[in-house]
């Protein structure tokens, strides 16, 4: 399984990578939405799930979701928004735009495991 972690914070990327590697994922990282899109295009092995930070420079999480959902070849890509309490009401917009799930910071490895298992075993 391949996961793409999109966050402008190196520290957060490292935390998420740690969780995902423990859960058996191979992880690639991107610092913003544009880089993530490039990564998706160039990647030889398809990415199964992307963890998307809401608030990033250049391209927001919402814009990223819209860009992914506008491209049919990434239909099966699971999008999980990573957000905080402050931004929680805005996640609705991302879910409307085609994100599959959200998770609120801080979260544990178990929470992420549960959500990912649910999402990936029952494909959208």
């Amino acid at each position, binding site marked *: 399984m391949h996961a793409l972690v999109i966050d402008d*914070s*190196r*520290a957060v990327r490292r*935390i998420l990578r*740690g969780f995902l590697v423990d859960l058996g994922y191979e992880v690639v*990282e991107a610092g*913003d939405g544009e880089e993530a899109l490039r*990564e998706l295009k160039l990647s030889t092995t398809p990415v199964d799930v992307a963890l998307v930070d809401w608030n990033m*420079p250049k391209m927001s999480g919402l814009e990223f979701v819209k860009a992914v959902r506008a491209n049919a070849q990434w239909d099966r890509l699971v999008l999980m928004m990573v957000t905080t309490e402050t931004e929680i009401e805005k996640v609705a917009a991302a879910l409307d735009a085609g994100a599959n799930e959200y998770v609120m910071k801080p979260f544990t*490895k178990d929470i992420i495991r549960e959500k990912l298992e649910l999402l990936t075993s029952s494909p959208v």
Partner: protein
Amino acid sequence: MTTLIEGCDEIVKDFLVESYENLDQLDQDLVALEQDPGNREILASVFRTIHTIKGTCGFLDFGKLEKVAHVGENLLSKLRDGELELDANRTSALLTMIDAIRSMLSHIEDDGSEGDADYGNLIDLLTNLQQTGSGPEAAGTAPGRAPDRDVEDVAQDAKRSAETAQAGGDGTLGSAETTTTTAQAADTPQDSAKQTKDTVQAADTPQDSAKKTMATAQAAETSGTVLSPAPSPTASSLTESTIRVDVDHLDRLMNLVGELVLARNQILQFTSKEEDAAFVATSQHLNMITTELQEGVMKTRMQPIGNVWNKLPRVVRDLARSCGKDVKIIMEGKETELDKTIIEAIRDPLTHLVRNSVDHGIEIPEERQALGKAHEGTLLLRAFHEGGQVNIEITDDGGGISTEVLKKKALERSIITTEQAARMSERELLNLIFAPGFSTAKKVTKVSGRGVGMDVVRTNIEKIGGSIDLQSKEGSGTTIRIKIPLTLAIIPALIVTDSGDRFAIPQVNLLELVRLEAEQIETSIEDINGSPVYRLRGNLLPLVFLNKELKMQAAESSAAGSSAVSIVVLQADEQQFGLIVDEINDTEEIVVKPLGTQIKDLDTFAGATIMGDGKIALILDVMGLAQRAGIIGELSSHGIGEHKEQASTGSDQRRTLLVFSIGDDRRMAIPLDLVARLEEFPISSVEVAGDREVVQYRGEIMPLVRLSRFFNTNPDETEQLQVVVYSHMSRSIGFVVEEIIDIVEERITVTIDPDEQMGLDGAAVVQEKVTDLLDVDAVVGAAAPEALEPAATAEAEA
């Protein structure tokens, strides 16, 4: 620690490095926002930083930090969404929050905990500030005092804890680390969107934050490798296109390159005698590569001056606020690069100068408006390259400096004498501000009157081979211009030989070279009571013999007139002097090496270098040499020396005088600074025009006044007339004297006899003999009133 994740240490380090970097940007952003409160783009970036810190804290279990960041984030999100408006109080509170976050981060860096400081007040304040949202304007201005005090109190609290944290942190800053940044790396995405000549938002500053996170810097290196499977070949983020390198490594590299340059020079010297074409070609190749390598390594040590400047908006903002002033700071040329060591060296002087400008230069808004200026003062920082040097200018549009006030103060403190004051040009008066023990502040404020005077600023600038100059127009502002070399490691120098040894003289001190053929020596080098002087274009240039000062065995005495003499004209402080050496060789780029501990206290040498032939040459410290030779402080052209022993009481003054005789054993003196030149004319060259004696001198007709006739004395008749030339407003007059006796610097007590002869300015005991003081103006007025015509009218107007 109960954390949600393993491998926590590395992540904490990452978190610290990242947060420090972002916080530095935040300082800039918030100050910029105050100018442009509605800028959503900046607000969004500020929000994002705090948001990220808060988000990450949750994972790392830093509850207190999370709480502070959380209330800050709430306030910021309202600001960003336009529900609230950013005013001065909110900016202050947010800046205080940043300080608090920094303080906690630095605790975390030290011992992994967030520290004991209580941020309850800050949290309350930040919470209150987001609830007064109904009337954003009113919250900022109308209730005035109460919230204001709140902000200040909290700021104090936070500052205190920040300081303790800083004190703890400083101890650990053992080995300095820096980041080498490529030019494009400094362009953050935000930056590119802004105009080039922007006001405050500066480029990202990895170096600055690196300094703070020294302890954690290796983390960055590690993370560099861990994260390195870069997702795409075009590395996009700033952090990934730079690496952090220990400054010690760079210093070592620089040193090695220096050695390589020297070895290259040696090889090239051999090559010049070699005929093997292949060998010559290889040497040339080596030569080129070495030069390129040298430039490359130098470049790694270069940092944009923006790294120092970036701290200033915050400094200016806080200071302006505490003085009740409005100050806008504009920066031009912040990408101008300087060697790291120089960047470090100018940090404090620059900060001091900027504080001065805000504190003493720029007026309070009411005063400015009364003068018809914009209520907001402007502070312009400019940096640019010019002639292998970097110029830095600090300009304010404040009240300027009053030369009258300066003069008065300098006289009160006996820094200058009354007669010097009268002769000093505007520019010289302004530069009095750099004299030791001088400060123009009407009152000592906690901000800039902390005992560090402008003299210290000048000393620090001069220590790195720089110079500082000040221009000011009363009422409209002040410009301070600093010139500094690009680097200290490799400097251009003049190589000279004396007594069989070679010496290097830094080019910055060098003014010109004069070569005197044997036959010229006698006529142009004059001996005034054992002090040799040379007349360089009419100015008396004191001479210093290198072999005498260094007590070397002269190979052959060249000064006696047996052969040609080389004079190296040097500038030390305000004084020029000529250094006599056996031979002038060449100018070269030399690599400066520090002296060994045994001789490093010798102030005549600034260092050593290795020459092309592998031999060592000592680098002369021109200032030290001038001091040793007694040039500085004795013949100082303005006498801004050490005159601090005693306050001047009018007549009891220290003066530098030219003493001469006019016949009948009558001694007379005039202040040396009135003397333009000393000349000798054969009696046959004197012509008579009208009823006056004149000589042709430098293409003009110069009237002569025989002081013996004026004062009725009978001098010894000689074939040569000794003439003291006095110039005023580009007109000259020659006083014919019997004999020049000496130049002395003495504290004299002037007594004035009521029945005094016309043309005297009193008398004094000089060198234990009674000496009359010549009143130049009176003598000119009586004996040759038309001689200095333009001057006479000028004085009449005055």
